[in-house]
């Protein structure tokens, strides 16, 4: 998601790295590039200026310029300062002292409050909590229905009292219901409003006071431009925002608004929304984001993601398979399904250190459609064929191609890749220690690219 910003910064650092000695002039040149990159990523103008000034002050110090590794030091300074912009914050939604804990979701029209309400409820359920959601959006036509349908689809309990026009009344009755029936969190979806709409901002103040809401999450579109700090700042000034949820991060927004809002408004980013499914909401971790922005990868996120979708049993079964000599097309299919469950490949690649570069060099190899095609081909094989690939002769290949809507060439290519993979896996299984690791990396390069050719 921060791809472009990362690339810009990387090329700046690459040119800085080539310099054996840094001069104030070369630092200045790099700073100008960094400034452009940040501005194009929608980081607020004032934030950029202050950021550049701070980096300059620290970078041109004698100690830095004359140190043995000046470029490394400059990069470290940039990382520190970026990290500083994002503020302290652990991500997620801490358990409050109130029962029920009342959470308001606020923001401009179209930021994604209703979707986020349901995603957050799902996330809380995953934490073992019992959320109840209620809509107070009595203004937008069918907003209440939207929440009911979304929540119903994923098994989140929604409260929809008959009072269709009383904003505070709707929320209060939800809190009362929660208290009497044991829900420990109430998520209140609010109508989208402009931060300069006095009447509607008053309404939020009333809502906050009458509900004793402890958490106020400001929902912001990651694609927002320079105006982000103005609207978020005003919501915070009037209501005291406790956290920010950045939505639509699955697009190609560079997310500069995240940096601006966190640093200017001083409110930590609690969650990021990265897709249309109810599961696509992640707690936000500043450290991981900064590493990711600087192209250092985010192994922690990857490991967590993998743990979510691959059970331990499955993993050890797969490992036995990989080590043994009986890797079949069926296993390849299972593996692909696992990879698919992890999410879009291109997003996954972002998480692996160094892979970002590799992927940009081989864009076609990471075409997610190719995975689907490979699955279609394997799905068109008989059970026997999947377990014993040698069965697949010319006429079977024609049948498989027809069945999967591909060509015989596609089937041939897949089989060739499969044989190659088997060979590789055998060598991995036989090898050990350092050697194994090196091969495994080679396998990763071919492996993640295998179905694509």
């Amino acid at each position, binding site marked *: 998601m921060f791809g472009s910003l990362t690339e810009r910064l990387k090329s700046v650092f690459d040119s800085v790295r080539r310099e054996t000695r840094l001069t104030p002039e070369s630092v200045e040149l790099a700073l100008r590039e960094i400034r*452009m990159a940040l*501005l*194009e*990523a*929608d980081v*607020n*103008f004032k934030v950029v200026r202050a950021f550049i000034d701070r980096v300059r002050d620290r970078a041109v110090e004698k100690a830095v310029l004359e140190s043995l590794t000046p470029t490394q030091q400059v990069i470290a300074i940039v990382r520190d300062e970026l990290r500083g912009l994002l503020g302290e914050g652990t991500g997620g939604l801490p358990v409050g002292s109130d029962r029920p804990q009342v959470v308001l979701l606020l923001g*401009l*029209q*179209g*930021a*994604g409050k209703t979707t986020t309400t349901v995603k957050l409820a799902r996330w809380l359920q995953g934490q073992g909590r019992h959320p109840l959601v209620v809509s107070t959006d009595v203004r*937008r*036509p*069918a*907003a209440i*229905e*939207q*929440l*009911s*349908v*979304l929540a119903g*689809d994923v098994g989140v309990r929604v409260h929809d009292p008959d009072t269709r026009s009383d904003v505070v009344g709707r929320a209060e009755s939800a809190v009362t219901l929660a208290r009497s029936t044991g829900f420990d969190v109430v998520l209140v979806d609010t109508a989208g409003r*402009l*931060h*300069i709409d006095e009447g509607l901002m008053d309404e939020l103040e009333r809502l906050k006071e009458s509900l004793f809401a402890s958490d106020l999450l400001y929902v912001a*579109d990651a*694609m*927002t*431009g*320079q*105006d*982000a700090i*103005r*609207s978020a700042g005003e919501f915070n000034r009037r209501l005291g925002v406790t956290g920010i949820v950045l939505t*639509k991060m*699955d*697009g*190609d*927004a*560079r997310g*500069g*608004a995240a940096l601006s809002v966190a640093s200017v408004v001083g409110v930590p980013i609690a969650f990021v929304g990265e897709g249309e499914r109810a599961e696509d909401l992640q707690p936000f971790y500043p450290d991981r984001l900064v590493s990711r922005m600087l192209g250092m990868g985010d192994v922690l996120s990857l490991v967590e993601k993998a743990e979510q979708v691959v059970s331990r049993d499955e993993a050890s079964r797969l490992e036995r398979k990989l080590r043994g000599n009986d890797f079949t097309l069926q296993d390849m299919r299972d593996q692909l399904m696992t990879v698919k469950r992890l999410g879009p490949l291109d997003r996954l690649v972002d998480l692996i250190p160094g892979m970002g570069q590799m992927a940009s060099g081989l864009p076609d190899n990471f075409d*997610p*459609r190719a995975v689907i095609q490979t699955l279609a081909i394997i799905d068109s094989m008989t059970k026997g064929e999947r377990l014993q690939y040698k069965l697949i002769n010319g006429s079977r290949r024609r049948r498989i191609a027809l069945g999967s809507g591909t060509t015989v060439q596609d089937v041939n290519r897949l089989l060739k890749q499969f044989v190659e993979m088997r060979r590789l896996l055998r060598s991995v299984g036989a090898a050990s220690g350092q050697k194994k690791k090196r091969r495994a990396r080679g396998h990763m390069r071919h492996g993640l690219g295998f179905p694509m050719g």
Partner: protein
Amino acid sequence: MSLVDRLRRGLRRTTDQLFGRLDTLTSERRRSLDSGGGPEATASIDTLEALEEILIEADLGVVATNRLIDAARGHVDGRDLLASVKGELCRLLDFRPMPSGSVPCPKVVLVVGVNGTGKTTTVGRLARLAIQEGQRPVICAADTFRAAAVEQLRVWAQHVDAEFVSARAGADPAAVVFDAITCGKARQCDIVLVDTAGRLHTQVNLMGELDKIRRVAGRAISGAPHETLLVLDATVGQNGLHQARKFLESSGVTGIVLTKLDGTAKGGIVAAITADLGLPIRYIGVGEQLDDLLPFSATDYVDALFRSSW
């Protein structure tokens, strides 16, 4: 209330924030000239930097900002500086109306955009505009994905009293569009307004779905969709340019609708979009009422923006 008045009312905050500052800037500049600093050959670096800051904060983006600043360079007097910025903005945003050949009946207008920009509301307002012009619109609810999107649009259709065609949730949007066009033909309506589901421009398969809608529409009536409007939220930053480019590539966008201009956001990215992609802005949304959608006119827009200044 006249069109320009309404435009100005909606844009007042934008004007105050953006061009109020420009005004201060230029008058300060003039004062310094009046106080006998002696005319310099070019606008000072400070002035240009301040101008750059203002334009970047209005989300025009670095490229469009540089273009405007290059135009402003070389002018000494404050009035000239402002006039040249204004002239350049106008030149960027102005476009010739599309050649109106034989008017297709019904005319099919596709409304597309990323999630949450205001497509559904815009469709309701376009229907209202059409009715005010004496046309009979059909509203087509092709957003079968977002929960309750159809109900939301149904309410708008009832408000403005337009024909309404929808299908159950999860139905094929292209089929709904086909039905709506067939309905429009049978009832001799003038215009079919199609609301589509919000989609991020990076989602290849959803962009493909738009392509299918276009193909099916073209089969229902030749040349359809006759117009494809991309709805952009005025708060959007540089990503707006990516959005416009991707939607232009995959669904042949013919014009922009800039919504939510009644906030403090300026929607300056449209300057970059028109400069880079040549896409005209067709309408702007300046409020929450049904008739707060106005046809875009570059001169009125820029005039309204600068009115408080001069």
